[in-house]
């Protein structure tokens, strides 16, 4: 090479090298941010569920996939994939494949046996069982306790997920179980000793009288299930005579510490009241199996679930420890019927704080004697998917919601699109900011909303960047998924415009967030014939 060409070459090469060096960290960052492993099912199987658990006791989260035989919806199989410290954490071939008994209705995961690690639990109409995946067929199913599981028939192509039935009721470090029965909530306690783990069937928490009483009912029945309002017409108007018609509905209980004494209590709501079963003294574990425990406390619901509220799209009640004082607080959200446009109101009640005269009464620690909230927030727009979770990492719940604001100018856009706003109100000491601390807008095309927009997601996921603030998961189109960095800068939160990660997926794919205490969140993308496992190292 001539000296001139060498100089030219070097002159041209330098910025090129600089460019390569500058982009290398970004490229490396893109490469490392997420790792996706595909676990494919055999041609004749369809994926219908996934659970995560440490099935071999090595401290790593493994996966259990529920597969259903194509064309025969009751032939179900569990495929266990153990995690390894390798480039690809899971192997394509499962470490174990087990048939699911025909009468299994639901599943969960918990450490319920002396074997190392956690077990898969199966629930049938009459009892709960631990599944020892390494054991021989004769020893595989260990009966835990008998019960009248509310859901007595298996469903084709699925197992119901009953993970919320796994709680440490007596806070002794061993996970216990509760199941709904037609007449109440059955408790079962785990004990461990030298001979292993044992469950004993405990008392039943009785349903409040109001839940069981006969009501005057019309022919249009409305119910709130899955966070939504459901309507059905009484089949008697069509004169149908089925072979059998069984329907049982129970209030949903929340297991929380109501009185701050360190053990779990239960809170449930009926039409007009909030009921609390307070675990006192030696606790429910000491009660006999035949005992039926009625609610201990009853309060007037500050916003009763009457006929109007039962059909209120926005109505919801939840209990959580918002101020981290060890006692459950409450938030009631409902539609403002008086507003001309869509508007929701959120009443926040902080346990023990009270409001108004005679505050902090022992008789009414949560709602106070008159049901006055500690905070009232008004939220404009069509409220969707309100959540309470610690987004900013300060150990206090924040209030996140989506709002659809219907503006006539939106309607006139040629593109036919719609704006969806994500708002976050930071929480502190049980109450929330009066104005949103974070607002993020997503524009959705009209076509995307066909099918009800069921595949849309706009929510906070885990902290994937290590800064203590949760990231934002966005599925703005059914075939597109992205994660955005939510950053705290000088105390203010912002969503960076450039996605940290994105991928295309099957438009019918289901998304599940896999949470394990103390571990970074992972994603499970369930497609018909495979699972895509996404981890963020």
């Amino acid at each position: 090479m001539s000296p001139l060409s060498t100089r030219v070459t070097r002159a041209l090469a330098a910025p090129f090298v600089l460019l390569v060096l500058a982009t290398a960290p970004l490229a490396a960052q893109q490469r490392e941010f997420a790792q996706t492993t595909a676990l494919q099912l055999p041609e004749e199987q369809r994926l219908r569920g996934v659970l995560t658990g440490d099935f071999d006791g090595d401290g790593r989260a493994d996966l259990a996939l529920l597969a259903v035989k194509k064309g025969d919806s009751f032939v179900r199989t569990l495929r266990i994939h153990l995690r390894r410290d390798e480039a690809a954490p899971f192997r394509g071939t499962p470490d174990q494949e087990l048939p699911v008994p025909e009468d299994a209705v639901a599943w969960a995961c918990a450490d319920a046996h002396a074997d190392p690690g956690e077990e898969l639990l199966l629930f049938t109409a009459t009892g709960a069982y631990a599944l020892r995946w390494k054991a021989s067929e004769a020893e595989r199913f260990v009966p835990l306790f008998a019960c009248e599981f509310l859901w007595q028939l298996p469903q084709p192509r699925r197992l119901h997920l009953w993970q919320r039935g796994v709680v440490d009721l007596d806070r002794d470090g061993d996970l216990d179980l509760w199941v709904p029965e037609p007449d109440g909530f059955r408790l079962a306690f785990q004990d461990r000793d030298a001979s292993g783990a044992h469950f004993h069937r405990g008392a039943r928490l009785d349903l409040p009288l109001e839940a069981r009483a006969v009501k005057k009912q019309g022919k249009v029945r409305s119910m709130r299930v899955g966070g939504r309002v459901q309507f059905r017409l009484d089949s008697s108007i069509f004169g149908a005579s089925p072979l059998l018609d069984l329907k049982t509905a129970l209030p949903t209980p929340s297991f929380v510490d109501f009185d701050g004494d360190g053990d779990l209590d239960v809170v449930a709501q009926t039409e007009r009241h909030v009921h609390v079963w307070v675990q006192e003294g030696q606790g429910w574990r000491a009660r006999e199996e035949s005992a039926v425990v009625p609610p201990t406390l009853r309060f007037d619901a500050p916003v009763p679930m009457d006929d109007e509220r039962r059909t209120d799209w926005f109505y919801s009640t939840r209990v959580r420890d918002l101020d981290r004082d060890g006692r459950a607080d409450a938030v009631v959200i409902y539609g403002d019927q008086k507003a001309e446009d869509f508007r929701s109101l959120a009443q926040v009640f902080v346990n023990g704080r009270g409001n108004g005269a005679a505050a902090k009464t022992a008789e009414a620690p949560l709602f106070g004697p008159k049901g006055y909230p500690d905070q009232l927030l008004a939220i404009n727009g069509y409220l969707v998917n309100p959540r309470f979770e610690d987004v900013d990492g300060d150990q206090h719940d924040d209030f996140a919601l989506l709002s659809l604001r219907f503006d006539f100018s939106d309607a006139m856009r040629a593109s036919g699109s719609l704006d969806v706003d994500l708002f976050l109100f930071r929480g502190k000491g049980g109450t929330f900011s009066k104005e949103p601390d974070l607002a993020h807008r997503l524009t959705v095309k009209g076509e995307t909303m066909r099918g009800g927009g069921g595949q849309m997601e706009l929510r906070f996921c885990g902290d994937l960047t290590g800064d203590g603030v949760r990231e934002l998961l966005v599925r703005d189109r059914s075939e597109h998924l992205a994660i955005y960095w939510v950053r705290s800068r000088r105390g203010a939160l912002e969503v960076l415009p450039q996605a940290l990660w994105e991928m295309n997926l099957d438009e019918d794919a289901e998304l599940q967030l896999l949470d394990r205490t103390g571990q970074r969140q992972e994603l499970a993308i369930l497609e018909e014939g495979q699972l895509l496992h996404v981890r963020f190292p």
Partner: protein
Amino acid sequence: MSASLRSLAARLGCALIACAPLAAQAPLGLRLLGTLEPESLFVELRAIDFDGDGRSELLLVGEDGRLGLFGVGANRSLAARGPWSALPQPRQSLLAIAAFEKGSAQQELVVAAPAGISLWRPREDGSLAPHVESLARRAKFRLRTERPRFSPFVLDLDGDETADLVLPQGWICELWMREAGDGEARWKRQAEIPLELETEIALGTELLSDQLLASYRVPALDIQDLNGDGRKDLLVASGRKRAYHLQTAAGEIPAKPDLELDLDTFRDTTPEGGLRLGRTLQGAKESQLDQRDLNGDGRPDHVIAHLRKIWVFHAAERGPQFTEPAQILRVAEDVTWQEIAHLDDDRWPDLVLMRVEVPTAAAILRGLFAEMAIAVKVLDYPGSEGGKFATLPRRTRDLVLRLPPLLGLLKDFTKYLQRLETETSRSRVSAEGDLDGDGTGDLAMVTEDGTALEIWLGVEKPLPGRERMDALFRRVLFEESDPEWTIERLLALFGDFLASRALELTKGRAPALRYELRSTAEFTTPELALLPLDEQPGAELVLSYRKIGSLGATVIDVLRLGKD
């Protein structure tokens, strides 16, 4: 006697004669024979004729499994026949009432439980007890019913005038057929039939305002004569498959179906478009099956439709067949929905196609704030003697569905629900039977507000359900002069349909009498039954109420029609 006296006497006499019929026609009324307030909760009641003498007793079954028998005595009042007895497994019991012996009107109480299927009759003291502990050793009912429930699981499947059993066991149903022969009655498990349950499941969320829900509805079996041989056959739907079990001459319903149909084998090659804004809404992605006797031969024929293609299969002598279509229709444009219905006065069912135009995205978004019109086109293809449809439409009609601003609809949804509730209340609780003993049917109906009972004597037989639906289609799609439909008008139409059966029965007549029911603030709308409980001609009227706010306390009034 003077002339004036004779005249007076004559006039008096005439007056007396004129009054006599009036005296004989003293007004009718309902008299309370007795009231029962059993201790058990959620009591259900049925009439049962243990003796086969045409006179029934009232069987009461409580939530706790207690059984009681009541009847109308010689003193015309209601009284218990004996002490209460109890079912051994009340939370897993299915009950039925049926006659088991050929030619006998004697009825039995049939109890299906995990221990087996037993027959119960009254003992000497009037209490009920099983006299047959197990009809068939292996027939055991396995589901949890939470309290005893009546179910139509005993029926004569094969037309031999003896009882067979259809035992629901979740997603399958066991057919137990009585074996022919004069010896001791035996039942044999003939088949296991897959069932399509309607289920609703909710496992709850973190929300206290949500409910946990377990709802399972097991439909009755579809039993009908599928091949015109006068014997009942069985049609089983399981997902996309249909199985046809044809009863043999020997009276057996085969375990293995004679014919199986996979609806997915019938597919149109038109690309599936689904919901496309601004275009015709394409109908169901999956092929749909309809069944009707198209050619009047007494055998049900089948029509399968998928997207733009329609196959017509006439039943053969041996029964349904899906290999030789009588006709294949192909329409030029997408179809949203199709139906077979009588749209004219001839015998032959017609084919109705409907096309719904989906608004554009911009129109939908504008529709959030302003009224939106959705165009619906309806086409009528007449049927003919050969069981085929015309290939060109006889008539078309353009309808318009006008929706209010969608945001307003969402905001005022409760208002529409209340209107729906009002319209559904036009489906009135009713019972039919011979109340006055004159051999003709009578009708008892609760008023829409639930405060009173109205009685009509001598009512007409109503049209079968399918014919009423046909009449509705015909009226709505082609005969209503106003082609524009609003939500309010649709709700009113729904209410009219629900009320139509009663209207057919009563022909719009005013009720013959009215009876005030118990207070609606304290009691639910009663269930009605017309049951012959005594030796008098005519049935008694039994009203079963539940007390509002109770855990299921039941009050039962038994009334009799008589002259006041």
